């Protein structure tokens, strides 16, 4: 484990839990971490590339980890997305940082 890696837990769309290491020094966001581990099939996540314009990376935050505050475009996109819950976030808007150690999320259904 590299010093800058953090442990996070991701539940995929089939309900399988993946305990993985996420780098925090490569400017990666949660959507990109999911893609790098192929936890969701290519073409079903990160469709807009990470511009908060498609909601294909929607996830439910299960831990009480402190996350960056939601910006207007993320909030607007989630207001148009489906299967949205109170703990919904767009993975592409969550940059991995060392203080997110222990983050737990579940991927929202594909839509």
């Amino acid at each position, binding site marked *: 484990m590299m010093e800058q890696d953090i442990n996070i837990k991701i539940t995929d769309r089939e309900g399988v839990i993946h305990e993985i290491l996420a780098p925090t020094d490569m400017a990666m966001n949660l959507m990109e971490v999911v893609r790098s581990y192929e936890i969701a099939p*290519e073409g079903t996540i990160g*469709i*807009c590339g990470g*511009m908060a314009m498609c909601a*294909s990376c929607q996830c439910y935050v299960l831990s009480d980890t402190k996350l960056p505050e939601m910006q*207007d475009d993320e909030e*607007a996109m989630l*207001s*148009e997305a*489906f299967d949205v819950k109170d703990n919904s976030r767009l993975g592409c808007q969550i940059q991995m940082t060392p203080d997110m150690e222990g983050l737990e999320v579940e991927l929202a259904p594909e839509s």
Partner: protein
Amino acid sequence: MITTDILIIGAGPTGLFTVFEAGLLKLKCHLIDALPQAGGQCSEIYPKKPIYDIPAYPEILAGDLTHKLLEQCKQFEPGFTLGERAETIDKQEDGSFIVTTNKGTKHHAPVVAIAGGLGSFEPRKPLIDNIASFEDKGVEYIIKDPEIYRDKKVVIAGGGDSALDWSIFLSDVASEVTLIHRRSEFRGHLDSVEKVQELKNQGKIKLITPAEVINVVGHHKVDAVVVKETSDKHIHKEYEIVCDHFIPLFGLSPKLGPIANWGLEIEKNAIVVNNALDYQTNIPGIYAIGDVNTYPGKLKLILCGFHEATLMCQSAYQIINPGKRYVLKYTTVAGIDGFDGTRKEAPKAVVKKID
């Protein structure tokens, strides 16, 4: 029947650049795209976003890139079948292909190049149990012919540009326009938001927010929708709005779609190609280029699509002109002869004596 040399499926950046490269080899192209305009994702998802990794463009807006590509390939007179999705492919005895769209338009070509990106854009349908039974009976996810709404009562749902723009447009056509959105905030161009505000104040658009359509009511056609409205104090009220049409506009999402059933080798939602040679698929004569293909080390970048398109055209030339000699020519040296009779060439050097 539309006939061409290379039939390109997908009019995004890779497909458009293919027209140029094919044109240099005197091959004519026709493009099919499910969207009503060229440009693919660049036009549909992020026309106003800058791209920084197009060679020689330190920054270019995705929409501008589309315009430049159209301008660059213009003299090769590409044909377009827009707003139709390539549905089936039939290999003919002579090795050529007939591709038919969902609207029955037939295209015949010796070579097919799939430049389909992430697939064809399909409307995202809201999760309303009985909505499917009202499709084309008053429920439309895409507005094709605004005239069908003339003097009708219309309910539009959504909070983005298309919901705003169509509400504005239909306020002059329909007898009644109701716009329903889950939040009071809309995301769209500022002038669209302001225009809707103005039309609301004039009573030309009825705005219901925060609210959601949760059910469709009717016998064989839409008679009303059930709306769930949330007031500030978390009190919900449900009621019906009488209408002739319900138009949910929740954006489009790409799906590989019918191409997945063409007998092509698929891996990770992409088409496997031979990247050591020419980006041909497991079916000779069918190529896949750009984001739609996969091979070891694949990167989904526009610039990689351009490269793939260029190599693909050289291979297509061999299929279309078997055994015919050809060597690569530089445009700077040879110029460009358009199919429209135009010619572009480097100006001749001045040869003049200096005394």
